[in-house]
C-alpha cells in the first residue's frame, strides 16, 4: 500500500469518524448521568438543516454552527422535559425525538433541498501540514475536526481528574444517594442531556456544512444511531469512543475503497460488513460480563423523581 493512499485513508477516516465521535461524546455524558437518549439522529438532522439554512441565508459559518448547536440544545430540552420532568419512558421518548426531528427537519428544509454552499474551508496547521503523509492525514482538516479532538481531550480530563466525573457517576449510578448528598440530580441530568443535544447539533453542522455541504432529507443516513450504539460498544469510556468512532468511519469507507481495488464481492454484502463487524466487536467486548457491568451506569434509563 503506498503512503499517499494511507494518508488519504486516514484523512477520510477522520472525516467520516468526526460526526460519529461528536454525537457519541455527547451521548456518553448523557448516559453517564443516567439518561438514555436514543433520539440523537433526529437532533443531528435538526442541527444539520438549521445550520445549513442560516449559512445559505447569512453566509456566516460561525452563525451557522452556533445555530446548529442551539437547535440541538432546544431539541434536547424537549426530550429532557418529557423524560426528566414528566418522567416518561426514555426509550420511547428517544424514538419519538428521532422521528420528530426527522420529520421536522425535512419539513423546514423543503425549500433548501439541492441548494449549494461553499462549505467550511479546511484549516491547514502551519508547518505540520507540510510533513508528508502525516500532514495530509492529520493536519489539513477543518476547525470542527480539531474541535472534536479538543472536546474529547477536555471531557476525558474532566471525567478523570475533575469533579465532573464524580458528579456524573454519583447521579448516574445511584441518584438517591446523590440526592441525599445534596447533589441536584435533576439539574445535573438536565445539563447532561442538553450537552448531548449541543454535541449532536454540532455533528449535524459538520454533516451539512463540512462533510457534504448541502441539505438533503435524512442526509445523516443513520449516523446518529451508530453513535448511540458506539457508546455502549465503548463501555462508556472516552478513549474507546474515540477509537470506535474512527474504526467505524474506516469500516464505512473500506467497502467503497475495496471496490476501487476490484474486490469481487457483491457490493450489498460488502455494505453489510461494517454492521456484522460491529456485532462481532460487541460480542467480544461484552462477553466478559463482570467487566461490562462495571462500566454501565447503574441507573441508566431509570426515571428518577425526588418524591419517590
Amino acid at each position, binding site marked *: 500500500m503506498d503512503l499517499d493512499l494511507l494518508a488519504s485513508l486516514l484523512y477520510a477516516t477522520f472525516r467520516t469518524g468526526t460526526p460519529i465521535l461528536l454525537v457519541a461524546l455527547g451521548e456518553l455524558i448523557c448516559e453517564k448521568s443516567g439518561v438514555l437518549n436514543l433520539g440523537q439522529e433526529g437532533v443531528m438532522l435538526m442541527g444539520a438543516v438549521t445550520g445549513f439554512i442560516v449559512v445559505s441565508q447569512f453566509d456566516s459559518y460561525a452563525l451557522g454552527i452556533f445555530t446548529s448547536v442551539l437547535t440541538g440544545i432546544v431539541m434536547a430540552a424537549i426530550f429532557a422535559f418529557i423524560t426528566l420532568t414528566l418522567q416518561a419512558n426514555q426509550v420511547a421518548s428517544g424514538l419519538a425525538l428521532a422521528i420528530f426531528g426527522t420529520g421536522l427537519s425535512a419539513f423546514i428544509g423543503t425549500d433548501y433541498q439541492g441548494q449549494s454552499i461553499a462549505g467550511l474551508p479546511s484549516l491547514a496547521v502551519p508547518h505540520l501540514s507540510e510533513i508528508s503523509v502525516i500532514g495530509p492525514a492529520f493536519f489539513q482538516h477543518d476547525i470542527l475536526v480539531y474541535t472534536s479532538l479538543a472536546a474529547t481531550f477536555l471531557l476525558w480530563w474532566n471525567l478523570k481528574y475533575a469533579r465532573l466525573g464524580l458528579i456524573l457517576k454519583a447521579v448516574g449510578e445511584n441518584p438517591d444517594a446523590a440526592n441525599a448528598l445534596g447533589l441536584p440530580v435533576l439539574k445535573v441530568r438536565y445539563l447532561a442531556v442538553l450537552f448531548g443535544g449541543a454535541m449532536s447539533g454540532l455533528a449535524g453542522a459538520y454533516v451539512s456544512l463540512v462533510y457534504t455541504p448541502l441539505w438533503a432529507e435524512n442526509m445523516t443516513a443513520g449516523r446518529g444511531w451508530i453513535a448511540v450504539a458506539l457508546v455502549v460498544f465503548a463501555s462508556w469510556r472516552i478513549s474507546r469512543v474515540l477509537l470506535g468512532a474512527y474504526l467505524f468511519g474506516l469500516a464505512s469507507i473500506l467497502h467503497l475503497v475495496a*471496490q476501487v481495488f476490484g474486490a469481487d464481492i457483491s457490493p450489498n454484502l460488502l455494505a453489510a460488513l461494517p454492521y456484522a463487524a460491529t456485532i462481532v466487536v460487541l460480542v467480544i467486548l461484552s462477553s466478559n460480563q463482570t467487566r461490562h457491568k462495571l462500566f454501565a451506569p447503574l441507573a441508566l434509563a431509570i426515571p428518577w423523581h425526588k418524591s419517590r
Partner: protein
Amino acid sequence: MLRFTVLPRLRWLTHRIVWLSVLMFSALANSAPLKVAFIYVHPAGESGYSYTHDQARKYVEDVFGDKIEVTVVDSVPDGADVERVLMQLARAGHKLIFPTSFGYMNAVQKVARRYPKVIFEHASGYKQARNVGTYFDRIYEGRYLSGVIAGHMSKSKQAGYVAAYPIPEVIRGINAFTLGMRSVIPDATVNVVWVNSWYDPGKEREAADSLIQQGADVLAQHTNSPASIQAAEAAGVYAVGYHSDMSRFGKNAHLTAPMHLWNDFYVKRINQVLDGSWKPESVWAGFSENMTTLAPLNPAIPPKVVAHIESLKEKIKAGAFHPFTGPVLDQQGETRVPAGTVMNDDALSKMDFYVEGVQGKLPR
C-alpha cells in the same frame, strides 16, 4: 297505425333531445380542467431524478394554464403504498397520471385494469396496456458524449464512476460513457463504485474521494446527490453531473451533465389527452426528440472539443451515429456487437455486461 308509429317516434325524439342536451351540458362541464397527477419516489426539491420531473411539471403548468389542474405526490416509496396513491388519485378525478419510478410498474398495471378510463404514462417501465404508455429518454446518448469530453480532458486516462444499483439503465450508462471515453483514449479505463443508494451524500462523497485517490481525474455518476461534484471540485479534478445542471456545486469541476428533458413529451401527451388522440405507446427517445440533452459545457473545454461534441450530437440526432456501434467488445474480449452493426433496442434495454475498459466485475 300511424299513431302507433308516431308516438314512439316522438317519444324517441324527446329522449334524443334530452339526451343531447345532457351531452352538451356535460361537454360544457368537460371544459373543467383536465386533472393531471405526478408521483415521485424522492422529494421533489433535490437535484436528482424526481427534480427533473418536477421541473417539467412546472413547465406544463405554465403552458396549459387553467386548462389543466396538477397534483404532485412526492416521497412515495416503491412498494405497496403506491397502489393506494394511484387509486386515490384516480378516485379524485385525475384523468392522466405520470408515475415516475420503475418500482411502480406492477402497481400501475393493477390500477390501470381497475380504472380503464384513466390514462397512465409510466416512466422507465416496460409494461404497456390499453391505457398505459411508457416513456424514457435515451440518456446514454448524452452519457456517450460526456465520455468523449472526459476522454479529451483526462490526463491520467482513468475515470471513476459512482453508481447506485446495477440495473440495466445504469450499466448502459457506464458502458456508453466508457465507449465515449475510449473513442478518444483507446486504453482509458473506468472504475465503478456501487454505493447501494440513489441518494446518500456521505457515501457518494467517500466513493468519489476514493476514486480520485486511485488516480481518476474525471468522475461520472449515476446517483442523485451532487456530492461527487463537490468532491471533484475540492480535489481539483473534473466531474460529469447527472439528471440536471449541477454546475452550481462545482464551477470548475463540472464539465457537463447528461440531462433529462421531459417538457416537450409532457406537453405532447397532455395535448393528446385533451383532444382525445392519446394512444398507448412505448416511447424511448433521445436527442432527436429533445428528450435528453447536455448541460452547458464547462468553458475549460477547448473549442475544438466543443465543436466535435456538437457535430456528434447532430449526427446522433440525425440517426447517422449510434453510441453502441460495433465492434463493441465486452470485458472478456468477446464481440457483443459485430463491426458495422448497431445494438438493437432489445439488447440495449436488458444490458447486463461491462464493455472493455470498465474495471472490476459486474455484481450479480
